[in-house]
């Protein structure tokens, strides 16, 4: 004879089972992501067939065809792989220099009111200036080599990282620092063991936003007399009405930027495992 609770489940257990069964039937979020991508691709294919103008809207299949052509060949003598490597190097170089400067500035502004008063208006003033507006000045001041290109990426990264860092450090609860102080921690120890770990989630969010900003400035950066790169590819293809190649460049930028963002997220999960769980 079965125990009574097996024959007639208690109402609490029943609810739990119902929930579990519903949860079991719940579709994986990846399904919806793939569904939305497939939906967009289908709508794009249908629209391109309706418009029937490869200049206005090439079909996804035409873009894939162009991508294959570029992967195994070249566009105007430059291979797609060369474009990918040079752009990634440019973006990462500008990003890491900008990240270092932004972190230092952000920390300095958070810790010292005078530095904040000196630097903050400049950063806030520079932040809304679009990357394209810098190009004529950078060319006049620094010519057309690699330096102005990387500098433009640094200029894009610094405000985002410094503001995020300052905000994250200033957002750390003062009682935490005071508690550490009361237990005899030095100023350096408080900074290293209390303030920085507590501010790290905010700093990493700023760092992630800055990578995306770097990639979104790339097309402007490679307007400065570039000879290769994904931004150059987009400009060049647009000048020759090769819209499918423009799409290839855009997809490559999106894919690399997404991969780097995933990498940073993984790093974030390792460094600040408590983020979002409190």
């Amino acid at each position, binding site marked *: 004879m079965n125990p009574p609770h097996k024959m007639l489940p208690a109402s609490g257990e029943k609810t739990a089972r119902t929930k579990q069964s519903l949860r079991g039937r719940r579709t994986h979020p990846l399904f919806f992501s793939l569904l939305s991508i497939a939906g967009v691709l289908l709508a794009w294919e249908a629209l391109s067939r309706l418009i029937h*103008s*490869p*200049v*206005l809207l090439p079909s996804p299949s035409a873009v894939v*065809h*162009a991508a294959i*052509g*570029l992967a195994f060949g070249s*566009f*105007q*003598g430059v291979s797609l792989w060369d474009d990918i490597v040079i752009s990634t190097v440019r973006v990462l170089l500008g990003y890491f220099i900008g990240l270092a400067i932004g972190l230092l500035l952000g920390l300095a502004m958070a810790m010292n009111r005078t530095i904040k008063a000196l630097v903050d208006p400049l950063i806030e003033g520079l932040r809304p200036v679009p990357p394209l507006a810098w*190009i*004529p000045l950078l*060319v*006049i001041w620094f*010519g*057309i*080599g690699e330096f102005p290109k990387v500098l433009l990426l640094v200029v894009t990264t610094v405000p985002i990282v410094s503001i995020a860092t300052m905000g994250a450090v200033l957002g750390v609860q003062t009682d935490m620092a005071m508690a550490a102080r009361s237990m005899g921690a030095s100023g350096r120890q408080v900074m290293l063991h209390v303030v920085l770990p507590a501010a790290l989630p905010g700093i990493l969010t700023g760092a992630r936003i800055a990578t995306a900003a770097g990639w979104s400035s790339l097309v402007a950066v490679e307007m400065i*007399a*570039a*000879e290769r790169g994904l931004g*150059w590819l987009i*400009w*060049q*293809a*647009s*000048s*020759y*009405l*090769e819209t*499918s*190649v423009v799409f290839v460049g855009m997809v490559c930028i999106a894919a690399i930027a997404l991969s780097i963002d995933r990498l940073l997220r993984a790093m974030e999960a390792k460094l600040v495992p408590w983020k979002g769980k409190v």
Partner: protein
Amino acid sequence: MHLTTSRKFTRILGLALVASLAAVACGTVTAQAATDTPALTVGYFKGPNPETVGQKYGLFASNIRFSSVESGVTAFQEMVGGSMQLAGGIGTPPLALALLKSMPLKVIYVEYTFSQALVVGPAIKGPQDLVGKTIAVTTGTTGDQSFSTYLKKNGVNPSSVKTINMAGTAMLGAFKRGDIAGGYIWDPVRSAMLAAGGHALETTTPFAAVVASEAVIKDHPAAIQSYVCAIAKANDFIQTHHQEALKVFTALLNGDQATAEQVFKTREYLSPKDAMTRWMGNNATNLAGAIKDVVAWANAKSATPMTQLPDAHHIIDASFVTAAANGACK
């Protein structure tokens, strides 16, 4: 209860959308039926050309709205998108690209010719001196195509010269700084680079054309004829009212009258008869030949080059210029 309200709202929204679309469609039809002068958007370059002078002196009909463009290709992209119906100042490379891409466009008037040059520093004496140097061109323009042709003509391997893409204004700054050895460019940058110590290795005289979308030509031929006549009138005004035109050009160059006069000297504004005689007469033989020469160059730059090049006559409609030359504008 909530669901019912939501459904009602969706229905009302749907009905409103259908009603608005119907109203817009009716309005458009009525507007087109009521007037034989459709609103036309014309792409143009802010420069010493009939479009700029004509706007200043009110030579165009009120249905014409001008919108400045950065390049011929940009104008074509807008025309294919439907936001623009005509464009002026278009050189041969965009026309060749349009032909290769089977874009529904036609050249209706060769409106003027202009001067462009390969301006280089004093150290470069001939084509062979270009090897290992950096030369700037604006991608997809007559300068770009003419430089490729110059290298080919003089037996210089294109890969031995570093060719970079640059807009005219940036080119002047880069030339003065010594970042580039030269550039293939038109006025006013050409004059400014010459004044900055450069000299011309080669000077060419390409043409600039008016292009219209096939749909507008088909639906509103009278409006297109009227526009061709207005351009002819503006060109005539530039020839006969030198001082007034010079004033417009000088204002465009921020008061630099000397360069404006120089630009004036290097441009020729063509009447419909001139356009017919030189380019568009005799089944547009000369114009088709000029475009054909550039088509091969544009095809080589394409991601998917064609094996058989299209006939350049497909992109030419000489009927409006012919009519204008035969007195249709009176």
